[in-house]
């Protein structure tokens, strides 16, 4: 779901759109660390298991438009799969993460992908991320193999390191660029529905607010 900001039409918001992202993948692949690295530019060395859902936000700029990413991060454990319907609903971007040092997390991708395809709308941009690229010596999944999987399923793909920050920005930003492109193409119709019905963007387009400078880090108040 991508929505222009609401409020009175002359409101000086510091963003023009909100994009909802979700991060999916097995337990321990580094979902929360990717989120934290992207919003805080820091690596969390011991990160507790996510319970329920966590959110992160950051304002980025694509083609001169300020876009606020509202990133949903949920637990990778099976027992939380029950909550996934509301989690997936209306996502404009889905980051699907596996751990390059643990083959099992890669093998489960097809089931994550099935969920993503079933529970999001056809225009949701799915980005495949091979995380922990800093641990190359323990690699269990080759780049080529994963790239092939991504190509076969029409996914974008990058290997990242939430620890060093390598390629993390690229993954989040590439996804946003692709979504913005879909809006420009008219494939993602912001006027489509009012109702907030699943798989459909829910809001009427309103005049875009005038943007202020995006904040450099997630630290300051990004309202």
């Amino acid at each position, binding site marked *: *779901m991508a*929505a222009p*900001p*609401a*409020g009175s039409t002359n*409101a*000086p*918001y*510091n963003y023009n759109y*909100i994009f*909802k992202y979700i991060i999916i993948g097995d337990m321990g692949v580094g979902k929360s660390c990717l989120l934290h690295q992207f919003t805080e530019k820091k690596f969390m060395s011991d990160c507790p298991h996510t*319970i*329920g*859902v*966590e*959110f992160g*936000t950051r304002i980025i700029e694509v083609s001169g438009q300020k876009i*606020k990413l*509202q990133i949903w991060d949920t637990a990778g454990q099976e027992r939380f799969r029950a*909550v996934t*319907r*509301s*989690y997936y*609903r*209306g996502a404009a971007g889905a980051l699907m993460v596996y751990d390059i040092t643990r083959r099992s997390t890669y093998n489960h991708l097809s089931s994550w992908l099935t969920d993503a395809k079933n529970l999001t709308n056809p225009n949701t941009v799915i980005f495949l991320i091979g995380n922990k690229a800093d641990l190359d010596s323990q690699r269990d999944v080759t780049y080529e193999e994963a790239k092939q999987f991504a190509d076969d399923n029409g996914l974008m793909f990058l290997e990242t390191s939430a620890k060093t920050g390598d390629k993390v920005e690229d993954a989040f930003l590439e996804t946003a660029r692709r979504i913005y492109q879909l809006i420009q193409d008219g494939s993602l119709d912001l006027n489509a529905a009012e109702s*907030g019905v699943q798989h459909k963007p*829910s*809001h009427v387009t309103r005049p875009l607010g005038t943007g*202020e400078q995006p904040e450099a880090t997630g*630290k*300051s*108040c*990004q*309202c």
Partner: protein
Amino acid sequence: MNGSEHAVAELAADPKSLDCVDGSTNSAFLQRLSEWIQCFCVVTFDLEMGQSMEMVCPEQVGLTEQDKSTICYLAFPDSNAGILGDSQFHFRCHLEGDIRTNSRSQSSIDSYNCQCAPSLQTDQGIFFGYVYFRQIKDRNVRRGYFQKSVVLIARLPFLNVYREILRLVAPEFFDNGRKALDFACKEIDRWAAVRVGNPLSLPLFGHNLCCTIPSLLDGALPGASYPSNLSALPSSTNIPITSIHDFDFIKSFQGFLAHLHVFWELMLCNESLAVIAPTPTACSEFVQCLVWIVWPLKFATDYRPFFTIHDGDFKDYTTKSQAPPRIILGVTNPFFVKTLQHWPHIVKIGDNTDTVDVKESPKVKQPGKLNSSVDLKQGLYSEYKSFLEKDKVLIKRLLKGIQSKRPVEAQSSLIKKYYYELTRSFMIPLERYVSTLMPLLRDISPFKSPPTLRDFDFDEFLDTIAVAGPSLTSGTKGDWAGLYMSFLKSENFHHWFAMKKREINNKLKLVHLQALAEADMEMWMAGKSELELIDLILKTRNCVQAVRMVGETVPTEAIAKLKRSIGKIVDKLPSDLKDLVRNGSLIL
């Protein structure tokens, strides 16, 4: 020493103090001590090795070998000045070891820096070294001289407090050795916390050091905040410290009365200046006086009250291939006369200021006259053309005061007052202009971003000077606009404005949050999408966090209202999402 000779012996006889003499340097021990001082170092002159570190107390303060070497070279005079007896001076340096983090927690440093007069703020990684140097004839030592320094390392610029501490501790050390330092550390560790604004009584070796740390608010005249009841204190063991940081301006500036206004302009605009003096005491005091003349403004660039040829930065500061750095250097080695020839402003202090004829008002000398000869006459060597006119009335009064032997304190406070009023008159238009950059209260809308301070527009500001400039409050004449233009490019300005901006933006965040707490959520929520409802919850959470992070307290009432608002938003969410959000982190 007013009966402090036996202080150590007395303390040793006190069983309560005995139990903590040894092994007393655990981390709890360091906690309070490190608010006041980092450590004592003893530096000795070894005939084979030169300067060497004899001991550090407490030992595990976290000095690297490089740090120790830095301290050693700054602990002794840089040239043979033939100083006999005891002398005191100070230096300022960067240290790289764990001492940077071992000392007071960052939050207590931050809170001190927020409350003290800006001039007294500490800087990350920068430490002061307060030196008590003893050089006396001693037949028992080879070459016949005893040469040793006790150095106190601290973050805070409380020069007079640390001087007094050393005056008590160093002689005890020379008599009784290490245990004097251990006792001193133990006593300081029991002191009150470093607290701004309240009179403090700090016991040491049977004396009480009585002082007050000037706060941001009474950042009025430097040294004006005396403990008011001082004279009423009956005990002769009290050592009143009327100003924790000030030196007698007249002592340093006596030979430079015609240049008082030039010094102020040079300091205000962070010009590069070197002070060449005969002794470490003279140069460190002079440099420190220079730094304080823009009080209460923070002097934002580096300064080194005592600097030697051994310093790691020596090459950078003396190379002629680049412009000198924007710093103030105090040096004693005559070698510097040669190596600093390309520096734009040099103050040379004569060998004996007392004999200088102060009636003669020396002209600013051309730097070209800085020839290779190391014998340089006292004076200010610079091509600088001052923007402002000198204050002839003040100079006349000071000269009269010298003739009539007016007390040094009275002379110094005349100079202090002059500088304070100059700085104040200069800053008032800036403060006033900044207040016009504030957003209006009616522009604060709960559902928009918190407003921020507008940018500083140089031209717009300079326009205000014509109508409401410093001439409203200062009798000093001259090209104020020219001086502002120079100041607006300086590090002092950038630092000052950055602080102002942060302070105001933090307050605005709080005001905005309170507006959000009062806002009518029901009305706002009508017809909003799921995405936007979540966004408002996140915004609210972020705003609360941002306000808390800058150290502002959000009123509990506002928090309660915000919690109720979030509850209303959550109620509006589809039921499956409601549970998901309630289990998550969206709690204030």
